[in-house]
């Protein structure tokens, strides 16, 4: 094999993607070609360099945010659903709890495939509607300001 041919498939060789026959051809060439050997070393070094990047620790508050949401969602789902479907007076407390848990588990188990939230430039009507809710009781203006903030023009 000539150098150009080998160079083309050297990356595949370096990751072990070549078939046995090609491997033999490449290795035969490498025995006699120091340039290609250097190239192979360079390719392997690339792998090492990437592997040398340290792993960063995720900040602790990522979990906090997750925990808050899953707790609240579990509670909300459990509560909202059982209130609609059960008549508490007819069922003893332990059964109610069990049923609540079961319903919550079933609800969570139903896969709702995450909808792709593709939103282009925020339409004027949406911004208008949200900002108009500025003064509504117990709204959170820190979040609403995201609709009037500079980054969302």
């Amino acid at each position, binding site marked *: 094999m000539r150098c150009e041919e080998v160079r083309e498939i050297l990356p595949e060789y370096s*990751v072990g993607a070549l078939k046995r026959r090609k491997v033999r051809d490449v290795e035969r060439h490498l025995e006699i070609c120091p340039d290609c050997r250097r190239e192979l070393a360079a390719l392997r*070094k*690339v792998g090492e360099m990437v592997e040398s990047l340290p792993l*960063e620790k995720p900040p602790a508050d990522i979990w906090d945010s997750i925990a808050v949401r899953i707790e609240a969602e579990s509670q909300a789902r459990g509560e909202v659903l059982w209130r609609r479907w059960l008549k508490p007076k007819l069922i003893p407390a332990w059964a109610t709890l069990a049923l609540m848990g079961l319903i919550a*588990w079933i609800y969570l188990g139903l*896969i709702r495939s995450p909808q792709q939230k593709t939103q282009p430039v925020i339409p004027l009507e949406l911004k208008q509607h949200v900002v108009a809710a500025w003064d509504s009781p117990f709204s959170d203006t820190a979040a609403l300001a995201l609709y009037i903030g500079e*980054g969302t023009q």
Partner: protein
Amino acid sequence: MMIDPRTVKRAQNGDHKAFKRLYDSTSLGIYNLMLRMSGNRETAEDLTQEVYLRVWRSLGGLKSPKAFVTWLHRIAINVYRDWAKSASHRLEEMRVEVQAQNQDDPEDEDNEDLDLIPSSHPLPDEEALRGEMRDVIERAISSLPEKYRAVVIMHHIEGLGLKEIAKSLDVAQGTVMSRLARARAMLREKLSGYVEGD
């Protein structure tokens, strides 16, 4: 990432503590995957959060607890792609669309139409000694097309095996290998000043 299928089962039943254990065992990998894919720490935090929320919501649909890690990675890649495609990301960051230049890319027929988005800014370096080197490597990785970047990160940084990567991305193992190969070739070009032994 070694995951006990019993922990997965418990989490599937709504056990928050078990879910936390799953998070603890896997978040380092997922966070770094999101970090290296997006090139931005804040984004990585948000994406990581989104990954685990989606995991929690759809955990019940995982039929085989043993496949948790690959399933988790599939969700992670989807979360990343959703974010990459969203226009708000386009509004926030300067985007340069780069066409893949490989003529012998065996996946030309794929037409996945994934946006090839290089990261907007490399991470600030903290270790003064190896700072510049890290910078260079990080920039090289973030300039890779998304398909290649994903396999490089999963294999070389997260340490996932080829089979796991293939299952996560829903492609053949051979595809993973050829993507790794092409990625190496590209990185070798970008890092040429640093890899040569002469």
